[in-house]
């Protein structure tokens, strides 16, 4: 279970998180929605401990991530898998080496065994015969799949998705959504995704939380969110330029 309590984070004068609270139950799929620059990425980086909060705590099964020593933090991260927005594949390594990275490093597996597992994980995300390619030879959608295979390779308990459908065509995006749903059924993981793609959010979420002005302003099931009375949430999910949300850098 993941719990964010009164999380504050500033970068210089930019107060990004202003008391964010969020509770994700074990086995749940939580999707955090919010506009560009709303602090979604900052929020997810706090969960995996690459950013430390100015105040507040990040509890993973009761342990405060922010208070761990460096070594404890790296140990804890073995329980996580993360899919990055632009996939973030290691471009100096072959596809299978990317997928098997954590296995070879932490599992001390032999190269041959690690490669076999990598091929199996690649099959799980629908890729066959790409293991010896370099990431630069893959399309955007394939990179996402390899990124997902890398995230699940070491059998993590918690999966984090950073804008999983951004930059993909609608059909490829939906295929990734299906894959995320499938992963959850097969792997019984707790997952947190951040996105501004509502189609994706409705499809993969058990619950949706909206981040606005550094706080979670509403949490609910996809149906509850669709039928919200909150004007801000309504504006966001219907994608209207008119409403309480000010568009940054644009004056009326």
């Amino acid at each position: 279970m993941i719990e964010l309590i009164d999380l504050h984070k500033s970068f210089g004068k930019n107060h990004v998180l202003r008391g964010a609270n969020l509770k994700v139950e074990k086995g749940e799929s939580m999707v955090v929605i919010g506009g560009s620059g709303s602090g979604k990425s900052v929020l997810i980086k706090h969960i995996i401990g690459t950013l430390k909060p100015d105040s507040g705590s990040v509890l993973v099964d009761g342990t405060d991530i922010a208070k761990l020593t460096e070594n404890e933090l790296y140990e804890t991260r073995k329980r996580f898998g993360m899919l990055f927005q632009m996939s973030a594949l290691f471009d100096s390594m072959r596809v299978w080496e990317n997928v098997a990275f954590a296995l070879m490093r932490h599992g001390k597996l032999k190269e041959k065994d690690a490669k076999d597992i990598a091929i199996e994980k690649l099959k799980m995300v629908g890729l066959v015969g790409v293991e010896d390619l370099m990431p630069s030879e893959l399309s955007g959608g394939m990179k996402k799949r390899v990124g997902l295979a890398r995230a699940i390779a070491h059998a993590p308990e918690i999966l984090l998705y950073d804008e999983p459908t951004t930059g993909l065509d609608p059909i490829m995006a939906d295929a990734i959504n299906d894959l995320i749903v499938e992963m959850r059924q097969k792997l019984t993981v707790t997952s947190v995704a951040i996105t501004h793609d509502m189609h994706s959010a409705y499809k993969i979420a058990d619950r949706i939380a909206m981040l606005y002005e550094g706080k979670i302003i509403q949490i609910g099931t996809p149906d509850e969110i669709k039928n919200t009375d909150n004007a801000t949430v309504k504006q966001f999910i219907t994608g209207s330029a008119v409403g309480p949300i000010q568009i940054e850098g644009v004056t009326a």
Partner: protein
Amino acid sequence: MAAADNNIIIRFIELIGRAVEAFGRILISFTEELGRVTILLTSALKQIILPPFEVKNTFKQTIEVGVKSMPVVLITALFTGMVLALQSYTGFKRFNAEIMVGTVVALSLTRELGPVLTGLIVAGRAGAAMAAELGTMRVTEQIDALETLATNPVKYLVVPRFVAGVIALPSLTVIADFIGIIGGYFVTVGLLGANSSVYWKRTWDYLEISDIYNGLIKSCFFGASIAIISCYKGFYTQGGAEGVGKATTGAVVVSSMTILISDYFLSAWLFK
């Protein structure tokens, strides 16, 4: 008239104020950056001694920094030795001191030109590559990906490059010293017709072992500086492709300046 005078004075004071402010800002950012480099260095030194050791990665980086810089270092050293011999031969001839050419070539190369030129070449080649690679990894979130895969990026990326720098630089310098002296011999004896045994005698008579190892101490320091500065620039890159460009330029400029400036102080300290 008096009002105009006052105006000028006020503007002058404002100008000085702004200059002081700008200078202060530069000083602060320099201190900040120095502090962050030191933190990265401390972290890297700590990770060097903690297992697991990055043997494979370090080997790969040593090839990258050392072996692949060899052709450029060889050519530079050869021609530096040659031109050094040519210039000192023609110069010394004016007061009949040609026999000292071997000594001048050997001392200049081992104490000064070997370490410094090798350092500058490696800063331009390997330093730029380090900053560009790590910078690209930073802006494409590959460094974050390492962290999420429970891998300390300082250990995985910085330590191998640092160790490679410290190993490769002195090794390249030894080769540069040797090739430079051969180049000097070739010009002095081969082209200018000086006596071969006199050249070697003058080379060995005045060359002390401390000249060589003090030169190598310098090159170890240069190797460490290039690696840590370039890794720092790459590691903390911000702002996409432009940021990577800036990091790369910064790495080469700062490493080269560090080599040239620290060379004076190291020389003053080592060759008393």
